[in-house]
């Protein structure tokens, strides 16, 4: 009798443990689903198409240890430590789901780049008012911050990194690199313009065309009349650039022995995020990176050969408008760089999603853009803009 009671007792204890385990597993599954729903909602909020999309405001602060604390309009709190790990609590202070880290991927083989620091600390310089860099016989880069950080209407600080590199293919054939990049801060309007041009390789003067196109488009953006909005001026802007190319580089028959893609973006920082407009002709691309996900903003992929739309031949750009949240990264690049990106699985997409969770130094950025892959031998350019967490996000 006592033996049967003991067996019954053990059975009841095991049943209880099993029931608790089932409840715990179901709760975990629900939380996991919640996590996915929240991430999807977050992504949708980052990329709201079109103007006037509302932004939910909350409070952000950063402590001396590099921890960032945020509180949203519903009282939910999020804490991000210096290594990028996130913890969330609800309005009652109870832990919510943890946002999983991106799976770690080994970095590209080769020695890591370590800054040689003898004394002191490197500081981010202010971005030059206007900068144009090419890759004819050498690589070029620029970096710096911009934004309206003081006065009655401070905005998010923008941190810019740009690099252009002559491709292995051009180097092997002793040809000039034909990518050109540029950036210009418009202090009067409080907006940043960034641009990338990729000369059409089969034509000998395409590098010069790309150089002229970047110089001209930045000049035209900065001198645009106040009553013409950037997002409404794509066709006029590209027509003017094309006409200028033919005027300055064309011969007697108005033909120029060169052509170039062109992509230009206006980044209008707000207090909380930035509003972005992109005009593009050809296979240079624009992407956004947020919360580990890559989103294509402009691309013209799909052709079976190396043909691309170009200036001065094509003057009707595709135009896209986006609203980027704080912490997002806008990337413009030539196809030698952005061609290796996709939305999920490419080694470059995964690698940069991990490496760019925090803003890289200019040297790290240079290392990342000059990734090693035998297939990608074209000229390679990228201009990336990190949308700051606020005016004080140094």
């Amino acid at each position, binding site marked *: 009798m006592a033996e049967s009671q003991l067996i019954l007792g053990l059975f009841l204890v095991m049943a209880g443990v099993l029931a608790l385990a089932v409840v715990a597993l179901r709760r975990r599954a629900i939380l996991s689903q919640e996590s996915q729903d929240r991430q999807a909602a977050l992504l949708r909020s980052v990329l709201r198409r079109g103007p006037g999309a509302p932004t939910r405001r909350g409070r952000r602060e950063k402590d001396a240890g590099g921890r960032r604390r945020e509180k949203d309009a519903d009282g939910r709190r999020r804490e991000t430590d210096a290594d990028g790990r996130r913890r969330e609590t609800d309005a009652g202070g109870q832990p919510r789901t943890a946002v999983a880290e991106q799976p770690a991927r080994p970095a590209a083989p080769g020695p890591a780049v370590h800054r040689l620091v003898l004394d002191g600390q490197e500081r981010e310089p202010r971005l030059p008012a206007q900068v144009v860099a090419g890759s004819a016989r050498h690589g070029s880069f620029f970096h710096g911050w911009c934004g309206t950080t003081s006065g009655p209407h401070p905005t998010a600080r923008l941190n810019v990194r740009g690099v252009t590199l002559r491709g*292995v*293919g*051009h180097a*092997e*054939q002793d040809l000039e690199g034909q990518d050109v990049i540029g950036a210009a801060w418009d202090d009067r309007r409080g907006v940043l313009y960034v641009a990338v041009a*990729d000369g*059409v*390789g*089969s*034509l000998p003067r395409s590098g010069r065309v790309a150089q002229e196109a970047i110089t001209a488009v930045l000049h035209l953006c900065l001198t645009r009349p106040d009553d013409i909005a950037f997002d409404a001026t794509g066709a006029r802007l590209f027509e003017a650039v094309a006409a200028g190319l033919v005027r300055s580089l064309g011969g007697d028959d108005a033909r120029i022995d060169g*052509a170039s893609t062109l992509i230009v973006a206006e980044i209008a920082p707000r207090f909380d995020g930035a509003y972005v407009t992109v005009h593009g002709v050809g*296979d240079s691309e624009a992407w956004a990176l947020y919360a580990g996900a890559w989103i*294509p903003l402009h*691309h013209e*992929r*799909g*052709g*079976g*050969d*190396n*043909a*691309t*739309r*170009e200036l001065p*031949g*094509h003057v009707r750009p595709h135009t896209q408008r986006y609203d980027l949240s704080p912490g997002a990264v806008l990337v413009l690049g030539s*196809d030698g760089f952005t*061609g*290796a*990106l*996709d*939305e*999920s*699985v*490419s*080694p*470059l*997409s995964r690698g940069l999603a991990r490496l760019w969770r925090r803003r890289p130094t200019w040297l790290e950025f240079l290392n990342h853009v000059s990734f090693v892959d*035998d*297939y*990608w*031998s*074209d000229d390679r350019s990228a201009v990336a803009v990190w949308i700051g967490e606020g005016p004080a996000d140094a």
Partner: protein
Amino acid sequence: MTLTLSERKSYPIYILLDVSASMRRAGPGGRSPHDGFQQLIPDLIMTLADSRSLAKAAWISVIAFGDHAELLCPMTSLTRPPHVRSPHSGRHTDYAAALGFLADRVGPDRETIEAAGAGQDYRTRVARPLIFFITDGAPYAHGRYQAPEEWRPARDRLVAAPVEARIAAIGLEGAHGGTLRALATGRPGGERNAFLADPGDQAAGDSLAASVITMIERSIRLSVRAGELIIDEPHGMRRVHG
């Protein structure tokens, strides 16, 4: 289109080599066009394979034609050394057989290239085939010259959708320019990829080899304007105008 996967382009390259009797006739230097072109194949493969980026993207197939078409090298990636057999000598120059044989190869070759890229973390896009048709420009079979209407249907199958091949027709000085032009692709009503070696070039075969290599390098590496179908005039050659 979605961008869930990045793309890598693979470029199928076909070398069609005329091995008819007229190509084996020795020139002033004692060397026949056939000798020159024969050397072209290993030069081409070694040069392309030497460049890691080109070797990753280029696939090559070699077909000889005379009395009939003969596959010397099936479609092979340059990441591994391809084996190219020596051709049998022919007496005739049967364009219809050569172009028909090639048109039948294109589909299976495309599948071969796509299968090699399957399972990777990128999508393989097979670019339009690039065909180098090396000939003396005198189609002759079954005891008579072949009229264009006999080989033109097979040529048109290659250049029409969905294949949309680009054909460069290459001949030595003295080759029939009109036939080269009819074979080649180019701008509608304008320039075509038909080339003749410059007269007086003593090392015609060598310079042709170098020119073909340059053409392949440029076709793979360099971007072109949308709608552009023209290959630059190679060094040591002149374009055949209509």
